[in-house]
């Protein structure tokens, strides 16, 4: 009953949510919401949520009453004998056994019994009436609030008055619910008595025979030796793995992470700290991003200089770049680089220095951007050079550490992952130095470097590093080798060749040299080669192992990452053409694209890596239900975020090409911006689940340690006796 109710209400809510922005689209004109945080709005928000809660409680109560009415109605309409016959069919062997004994006894001593009937029906009807009228009154009461909401004093007074009324309402709902429950029990016991009465009249031998037969059928058991014979069974190869018993299978049960050879606890600690810091920056950075998304539809939500849009936007982008993605990747890198070299990490201390420096850069960078100190307006190089230098030094230390680890490797070849990862660190350093060195930044020089830098930051740092991690973790999770080593090598060199030259496609039709723009467009098309090679390589690694997806909670993340690697990257190629630049450049299409890639590719791969790796380090896994919630909310949120934005941006580009007034394009985008904020909320929610999962993977759950504790106890006792 409860689940049915939840289903109906949630579907109603879903429909409302889906229709709401659609209605706004239909209206055509939409203005920014005037919403701003103040007392009135907050009070109204609270009142509204109370109202909604009361509404749902009332519905719940009504539903229970309906259910009871149904039981009562069923009792009247259904034929007695048919129903009792059904009851008898459902009896189990033990019940039949007792029944037969009773029947036999009765036949000996003929006696009769009577029973009562329904009495309290009018009471129920009375109650349902009361609850409906009270609900109606409460709704009316709040309508009055609606008309006077402008006056803060009145709102507060009404809110104060509402508190006892509300408390009364809750108590009433509780009481009503209990009475209903009691009534139902009474009704059911009445039913039971009636059935008992019916049974006590069954005396004839025919019935007894039927019952005996039924009992025999129910009692039939296999000997369990039909196939095996009399040999005792034993699992000599340790194949059988008994799962912990759990409640209802709310989510499909997936495979547990396989046990790995023990990892140096000190290295584990370092990696875990990288990933924890990354998780923190993800939560913080996307909270800022979500707030920015809200500012598109409610620009006056606050008017503080430190929180103004222009200052917060780089806070969001830089935080998720250098805080979340970079630290997350480095954390995974500190596992992959030594493991594919088959040695320990060269220096843990260097790892920690790098960790502190990069975190310091993000903290200081965030503060300085909010205070209005930035580098001059180039995207992703908003941190001023002393702050970016911290990040750079952190990377240099990591580079040395990785190179020294590879230098003392015990394998002959350098596994392809390390090609990608170490090159990514080298290239990141090159682009940072090129971007911040002052000798080629005058006039348009700044723009040419900007195009180069912002694109290499994405392609030569995030993408290259992440591919390296995937080249190790994907085969590991599938438990099969990478499909083609040579495709990986092809993708590596072509990625360097084509990706490096495409930076200026961010400035097509601008004043930078035409030939440079053309080179960038040609290079963007060339990107098809490494992207197709990489995607094919990953998908072919899946070949013959697709069935493993349903048993794994990490592989879906990998798969989504691969899909977006292909679609997102090729979308970038399509955006670089001259015509598509007319249509999409300067619109929010670029924003949608960067989220499809940085979120769809990088973040999904990061999560895949984290869910694959952390259980190996800590021996603890996240609950599957919350991993599932994380996955679906992130994916659906990303779709809600990007698709409306791409659609709206296309319309906006067409309006610009038609020479419509600029402000018309702004009004037209409002519903799509609203959708973006909704999608962003889902993504943000998924990050809360992710943070919870991180917590579950890291923190010791005492209850799970019973066996381990017992074994330790035994070992201790054993030691004592020896």
């Amino acid at each position, binding site marked *: 009953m409860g689940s049915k109710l939840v289903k109906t209400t949630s579907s109603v809510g879903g429909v409302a949510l889906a229709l709401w922005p659609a209605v706004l689209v239909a209206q055509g004109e939409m203005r*920014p919401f005037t919403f701003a945080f103040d007392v009135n709005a907050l009070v109204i928000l609270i009142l509204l949520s109370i109202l909604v809660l009361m509404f749902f409680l009332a519905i719940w109560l009504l539903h229970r009453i309906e259910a009871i009415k149904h039981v009562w109605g069923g009792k009247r309409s259904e034929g007695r004998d048919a129903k009792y016959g059904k009851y008898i069919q459902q009896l189990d062997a033990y019940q039949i056994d007792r029944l037969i004994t009773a029947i036999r006894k009765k036949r000996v001593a003929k006696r009769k019994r009577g029973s009562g009937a329904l009495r309290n029906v009018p009471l129920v009807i009375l109650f349902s009436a009361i609850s409906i009228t009270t609900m109606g009154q409460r709704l009316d009461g709040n309508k009055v609030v609606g008309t006077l909401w402008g006056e803060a004093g009145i709102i507060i007074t009404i809110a104060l008055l509402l508190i006892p009324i509300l408390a009364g309402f809750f108590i009433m709902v509780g009481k009503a619910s209990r009475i209903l429950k009691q009534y139902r029990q009474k009704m059911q016991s009445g039913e039971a008595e009636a059935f008992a009465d019916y049974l006590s009249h069954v005396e004839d031998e025919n019935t007894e025979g039927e019952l005996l037969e039924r009992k025999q059928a129910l009692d039939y058991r296999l000997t369990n030796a039909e196939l095996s014979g009399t040999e005792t069974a034993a699992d000599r190869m340790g194949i059988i793995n008994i799962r912990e018993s759990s409640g209802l299978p709310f989510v499909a049960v997936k495979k547990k992470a396989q046990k790995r050879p023990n990892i140096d606890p000190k290295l584990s600690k370092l990696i875990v700290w990288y990933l924890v810091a990354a998780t923190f920056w993800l939560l913080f950075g996307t909270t800022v991003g979500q707030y920015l998304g809200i500012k598109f539809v409610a620009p006056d939500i606050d008017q503080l200089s430190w929180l103004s849009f222009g200052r917060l936007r780089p806070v969001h982008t830089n935080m998720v770049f250098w805080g979340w993605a970079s630290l997350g990747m480095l954390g995974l890198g500190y596992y992959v680089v030594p493991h594919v070299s088959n040695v320990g990490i060269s220096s843990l201390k260097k790892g920690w220095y790098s960790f502190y420096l990069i975190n310091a850069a993000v903290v200081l960078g965030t503060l300085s951007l909010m205070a209005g100190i930035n580098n001059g307006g*180039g995207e992703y190089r908003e941190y001023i050079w002393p702050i970016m230098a911290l990040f750079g030094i952190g990377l240099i230390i990591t580079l040395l550490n990785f190179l020294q680890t590879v230098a003392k490797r015990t394998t002959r070849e350098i596994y392809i992952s390390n090609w990608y990862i170490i090159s990514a660190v080298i290239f990141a350093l090159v682009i940072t130095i090129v971007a911040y060195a002052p000798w080629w930044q005058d006039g348009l020089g700044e723009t040419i470097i900007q195009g180069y830098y912002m694109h290499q930051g994405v392609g030569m740092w995030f993408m290259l590093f992440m591919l390296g991690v995937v080249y190790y973790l994907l085969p590991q999770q599938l438990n099969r080798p990478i499909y083609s080593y040579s495709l990986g090598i092809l993708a590596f060199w072509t990625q360097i060749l084509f990706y490096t030259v495409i930076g200026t496609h961010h400035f097509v039709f601008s004043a930078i040299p035409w030939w*440079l723009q053309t080179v960038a467009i040609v290079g963007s098309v060339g990107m098809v080669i490494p992207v197709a090679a990489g995607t094919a390589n990953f998908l072919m690694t899946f070949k013959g192992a697709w069935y493993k997806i349903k048993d794994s909670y990490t592989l879906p993340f990998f798969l989504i990452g691969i899909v977006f690697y292909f679609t997102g990257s090729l979308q970038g190629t399509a955006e670089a053409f001259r015509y598509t630049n007319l249509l999409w450049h300067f619109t929010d299409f670029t924003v949608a694209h960067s989220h499809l890639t940085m979120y769809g590719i990088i973040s999904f791969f990061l999560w895949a890596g984290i869910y694959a790796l952390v259980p190996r380090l800590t021996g603890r896994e996240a609950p599957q239900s919350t991993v599932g919630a994380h996955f679906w909310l992130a994916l659906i949120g990303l779709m809600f975020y990007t698709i409306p934005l791409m659609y709206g941006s296309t319309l906006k580009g067409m309006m610009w090409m038609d020479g419509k007034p600029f402000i018309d394009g702004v009004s037209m985008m409002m519903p799509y911006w609203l959708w973006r904020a909704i999608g962003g909320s889902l993504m943000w929610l998924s990050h809360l689940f992710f943070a919870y999962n991180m917590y579950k993977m890291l923190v010791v759950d005492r209850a799970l340690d019973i066996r381990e504790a017992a074994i330790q106890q035994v070992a201790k006792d054993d030691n004592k006796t020896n």
Partner: protein
Amino acid sequence: MEFLNNHKKLFTAAFLFFLLLTVCVAIMPAINNQQRNAPLPGYTPLSDDARKGKSLFVANGCVACHTQQVRNVDMDRPWGRRPSVAADYAGMTRMDFWRNTATLMGTGRTGPDLTDVGNRQPSLEWNLVHLFNPRIVVEASIMPAYPWLFQFKKKPTEADVVVNVPEAYLKGGEGKIVATDEALQLVAYLQSLKQVALPDGRPTPEFLYAREAAKKEGTASEAMDGALLYATHCQSCHQTNGEGLPGAFPSLKGSSVVGGDNLELYVDIIMNGYDARPEYGAMPGIGTMMELTADEVAAIINHERTSWGNAAQEVTPEEIKEIMDFLAMGANK
């Protein structure tokens, strides 16, 4: 391959390959560009105030939504008279020890391009009201408000620049809204953003991808969309409903200039601006600055004369052409 199994050789090769490409597509073109280009002859360096204003523009991240580049495509025509060229940015160098050069070309146009905003919207009053809260003058705007660039003063002195903010936006504050130095500097920067004419004899780069329809209809005055022209050139001050903003921009609804017989005065105001009424802000010479044609001015006048309950006689482009020629003669004397 031995080469691929030697980490020193492998990573050195990757590094050099990347560096070579970097030099070819980034460093060399950048150096080349900064050596070859010099500021245009008409270029004037930023004033002291405008320079401080630019710092504020950078500090508040305005470039997140406002580009400063007119691309050589037809759809960018509203933002400037000609496409931007490399020389437009040549005068820009490193801002200071801490901060890089800011060409502020931008990569997103959530708000309008600002390359030529000094010509398009030079009004000090409008800019200040708009900075205090953009929605006072542009209802559909989603630009942030910048109230921290203003302060309340109970008794403003002569030197203070008072901003006429409607009651609804004061939020219970007492006194008058006065622009701080920072607000004035920021506006000074915005006013300084003007495209400089290319020196005589130099070919102006063309706008590509011209609209076919526009080419065909080009000369016919019926094709001129008065409402669209009004929205582009007049609406930000006089508003969609033509009622202006009390204390800042006069109403065109029932206006004696719009509905009256003095067509010469009407055209003069559109072309050369107006500052005869102390209760309102000064109107800039929008027609001259935006190089409006007689067809366009006629379309705007006809739109204003037939909207918001106005019902005055419509004009022909020929009439307007005559008046404009006469006014131009006067200006030349």
